[in-house]
């Protein structure tokens, strides 16, 4: 799979049908997931607002998965100087940032009815915020260096440093949270969730991840096209 995708020609051939396919799967999952989500019974504590979870939690997951994809692509691009991997890393970053931003906004919308405030320095929320800041740093660095080759490599180094740091950030924020508020406010999720909530949540998770996959492929493809076009222009 990886070896097959490493060849740009083959990647373009494979991704051409794969991107719309993933997109289609994503749309179906979204439709079913949302329908189940809205037909799920109200939570006895949270009422209707529990439904925000179906939009919020998968967005955070997708943001995290996108960073893992960004880190992996950066690693391959750095070590093997693989042009396609560089394009993949560049394509993943804005998507991840968007998902993470969505998670923050929906989290805030969820927080208002649940906690009575738009923002709580909860461990998870804070971790997602830091993740978003990491994305901002990556995008800022990529934009600040003019030479594209150099920008890609510098950003890749940053992505790897961030990837190494991410679990430590997660741990440190959890640790900080236990210092300040021993009992966490938010304990939705986990295997104890009733199936009427779990099923739509998992469906939505699948919907977000396939959406990320589809958009990622489309962005990589357009990046590859852009590079080809520029090479053509340079040759003339």
């Amino acid at each position: 799979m990886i070896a097959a995708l490493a060849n740009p020609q083959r990647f373009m051939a494979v991704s051409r049908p794969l991107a719309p396919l993933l997109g289609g799967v994503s749309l179906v999952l979204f439709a079913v997931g949302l329908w189940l989500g809205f037909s799920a019974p109200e939570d006895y504590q949270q009422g209707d607002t529990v439904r925000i979870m179906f939009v919020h939690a998968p967005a955070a997951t997708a943001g995290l998965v996108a960073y893992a994809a960004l880190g992996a692509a950066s690693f391959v691009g750095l070590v093997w100087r693989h042009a396609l991997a560089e394009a993949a890393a560049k394509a993943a970053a804005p998507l991840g940032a968007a998902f993470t931003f969505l998670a923050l906004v929906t989290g805030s919308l969820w927080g208002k009815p649940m906690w009575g405030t738009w923002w709580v320095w909860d461990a998870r929320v804070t971790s997602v915020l830091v993740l978003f800041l990491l994305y901002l740093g990556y995008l800022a660095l990529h934009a600040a260096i003019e030479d594209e080759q150099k920008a890609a490599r510098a950003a890749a180094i940053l992505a790897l440093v961030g990837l190494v740091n991410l679990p430590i950030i997660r741990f440190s924020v959890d640790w900080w949270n236990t210092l300040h508020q021993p009992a966490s406010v938010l304990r939705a999720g986990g295997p104890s969730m009733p199936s009427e909530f779990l099923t739509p949540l998992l469906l939505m998770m699948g919907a977000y991840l396939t959406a990320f996959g589809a958009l990622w492929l489309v962005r990589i493809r357009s990046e590859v096209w852009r590079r080809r076009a520029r090479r053509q222009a340079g040759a003339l």
Partner: protein
Amino acid sequence: MLAAGFYAALTALVPLAAGPEPERLALVAPGLAWIALVLASLLSLERLFERDLEDGALDLLALGGPPLEAVAAVKTKAQWLAVAAPLSLLAPIAAVALGADPGLAPVILLVALLGGLCFVAVGAVGAALAAGSRRGGLLIAVLVLPLLVPPVIFGAGAIQAADDGVPGGGLALLAAYTLAAAGLSPFATAAALRNAIS
């Protein structure tokens, strides 16, 4: 020198912004002294590699005998001794001046010394990445600040624990993170520098 001035001015602004009531200041003093240290350490990182890149010295350093990793390690250490360590000496003074318990001074000093090394080690990576981008200091801060979340938390936790008089893992965690950062930073920094001169 400049960084110390910045640090002093920043802490002097705190009572003006937050109000001079001693109770309120005492509550936030250690945290503010800590976060001001982060900012002051980052501020002076801009010229760490930028000048060597501009005047061509970095090419010569890269082609000499010792590897760039060693250059990065030595420059980081020098930056710590010249800038961060003196700032660390100011940290307990600033905290006490803002109304922190003087008994906390030794802990704050220790945390500031360790944290200063950590900020410089992580900051060097950011400075090397930003070298040649012509955005300088602000870019370095945007790159580095999210990465500094763990040491900031661990350091604050250590000071908090000392304030409460309970043993906490903060200091050990900060020391571990600093060691790891100082050990790994030269490799990432050298990779970034090689990219900058290529």
